[in-house]
């Protein structure tokens, strides 16, 4: 005769209500886990979506996601000639904000060479960019409809397509434009700065007798050079060894080369590390809170049954029967709470403002933790129950 089952059945309403409360708490733990996983997936999505085997970046830097990296945009031509390279293409990344009407939007702008690497892998609505200028494919996460016109500095873009599933490490949706547009936005100087640089150049030319014959007009374009990129993406030929190609480029071209795995490492271990730690800490705190709450619930449930436990002792129930009653109820509470939490998070996670990824493995681990918590928490109740004086069950005085 299973006493725990019968007690749960008898107090079913209250048991379910308690389990629901616990389930809500576990939903929060699961949500934090989902946010944690989402943070990782989001951070890596931009690297993975690029589909590159190697990232060529400015020497002594960790690439555009960690710090400023500027390289000539035509570097890709020489990279293409490296043995083992199938395709190379320059890309520019910039985080920027613009307004549509009164509403501000923050995006990760990605400029890519049309037909090259680094563009949107799939357009879920509209079409890809086909014209060289002033067209944009934006992430659906931004909530901007097709046809929207966006002004960014002196340029006006029109949204021609929507993509989805790619965001920056900060969770901002992406916006793809042509490399030329991205270069103009990122590298072109303001008029004041151009005039200033031009004046300084002319002064330098006048000051150096050796350069007296150089016409200021001939070198003027130098101050307005926008032929830069932040990285060159490289796709290798089938069978090519990434380490070999990487070593070749680093030795002869004097740039740093990151493999896709290294680039993910840079993002995972440095750029979003604090966010990950923060989320992890929140999860740990929530788990500790869960332990305390489960222990209190089980302890209270035990206190409510003190007289019944005393009666069981008087009529001869062994300690293992009493311990099993408490332990089984604790486990039932934990498992039912977990199931309710899992159902709840399964039905709501897609509505979270940032990507939330519920991983089956994480859920199994959490279930294991909940089981352990229930066992540990029930020890408090069991300890109390085993110390109950059986005379508690008897009325009367001396």
């Amino acid at each position, binding site marked *: *005769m299973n*006493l725990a089952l*019968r*007690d749960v*059945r*008898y*107090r079913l309403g209250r048991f379910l209500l308690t389990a629901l409360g616990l389930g809500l708490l576990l939903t929060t733990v699961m949500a934090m886990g989902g946010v944690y996983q989402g943070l990782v997936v989001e951070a890596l999505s931009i690297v993975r979506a690029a589909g590159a085997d190697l990232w060529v970046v400015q020497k002594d830097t960790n690439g555009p996601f960690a710090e400023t990296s500027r390289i000539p945009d035509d570097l890709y031509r020489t990279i293409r000639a490296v043995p083992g390279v199938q395709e190379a293409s320059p890309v520019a990344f910039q985080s920027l904000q613009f307004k549509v009407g009164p509403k501000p939007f923050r995006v990760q702008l990605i400029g890519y060479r049309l037909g090259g690497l680094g563009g949107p892998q799939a357009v879920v609505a509209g079409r890809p960019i086909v014209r060289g200028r002033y067209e944009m494919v934006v992430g659906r996460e931004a909530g901007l409809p097709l046809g929207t016109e966006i002004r960014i500095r002196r340029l006006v873009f029109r949204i021609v397509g929507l993509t989805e599933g790619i965001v920056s490490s900060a969770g901002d949706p992406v916006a793809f434009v042509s490399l030329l547009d991205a270069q103009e936005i990122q590298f072109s100087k303001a008029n004041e700065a151009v005039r200033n640089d031009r004046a300084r150049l002319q002064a330098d030319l006048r000051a150096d007798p050796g350069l007296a014959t150089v016409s200021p007009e001939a070198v003027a374009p130098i101050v307005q050079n926008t032929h830069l990129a932040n990285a060159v993406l490289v796709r290798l030929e089938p069978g090519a060894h990434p380490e070999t190609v990487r070593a070749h480029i680093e030795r002869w071209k004097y740039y740093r080369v990151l493999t896709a795995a290294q680039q993910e490492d840079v993002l995972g271990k440095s750029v979003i590390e604090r966010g990950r730690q923060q989320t992890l800490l929140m999860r740990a705190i929530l788990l500790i809170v869960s332990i305390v709450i489960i222990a209190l619930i089980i302890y209270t449930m035990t206190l409510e049954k003190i*007289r*019944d436990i005393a*009666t*069981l*002792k*008087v*009529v*001869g*129930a*062994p300690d293992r*029967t009493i311990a099993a009653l408490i332990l089984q109820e604790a486990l039932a509470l934990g498992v039912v709470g977990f199931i309710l939490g899992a159902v709840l998070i399964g039905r709501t996670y897609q509505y979270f403002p940032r990507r939330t990824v519920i991983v089956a493995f994480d859920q199994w681990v959490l279930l294991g933790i909940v089981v352990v918590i229930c066992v540990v928490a029930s020890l408090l109740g069991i300890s109390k129950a085993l110390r109950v004086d*059986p*005379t508690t*069950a*008897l*009325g*009367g*005085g*001396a």
Partner: protein
Amino acid sequence: MPAIVGEHLTKIFGRGETEVIALDDVSIGVEGGELVALMGPSGSGKTTLLRALSLIDPPASGRVMMDGATICEAGRVLVDDRRLRRRRMGIIFQSYNLIPFLTALENVALILTLDGVPAREALRRARGLLERLDLAHRADQHPATLSGGEQQRLAVARAVINDPKVILADEPTAALDTERGQAVMELLRRLGREGNAGVIVVTHDERMLTGFDRVYRMLDGRIASSGRTAQPSEERYEIAHE
């Protein structure tokens, strides 16, 4: 051979100024099939004696024997007291103490299942006993839905399901009216006789003494008097002072 014997039992609560001698060299014996009443005012030691005999709260000194075997001596319990209670004792409480989350049938069958009897067999035997006690129609009800009299009959059923050698009842009629109380006493008497169990009933209701074989009166932790009733089946009884 007596079903249970307590010899020179002593129990003291508290220390120093707060010391209370709850049992002071008390000796008592009950034969199988004998119905014994334990009477006395509040605080006289009746319940303490019951706890001592059932080993729920063993005496500090003295000896308790069942069927001739010593089960407690000089404050040391010599047997597994819980096993002893579930196999050879039946205990009835003043406030019934039924397990609220078990049905009437399960409450009765519980003792058997605790002792390893298969659930099906335990439930079969429990149902048979409930039929004998005219409680079969309440078998699937929880205790909270039963009347006081029904709950105490159910408690009696729980106490006798394991064919005990001794039944210890602590004021079993205190929460019942006279008619229901006497019905419960009659039931205890009948079941005790049928099972040849020694029955000790703590009561302070003189009206319930009908049919007892012996009455012990306690005062200040001592047996003040004990006596065999002349004709247990009659309403009147006599107490022969020792």
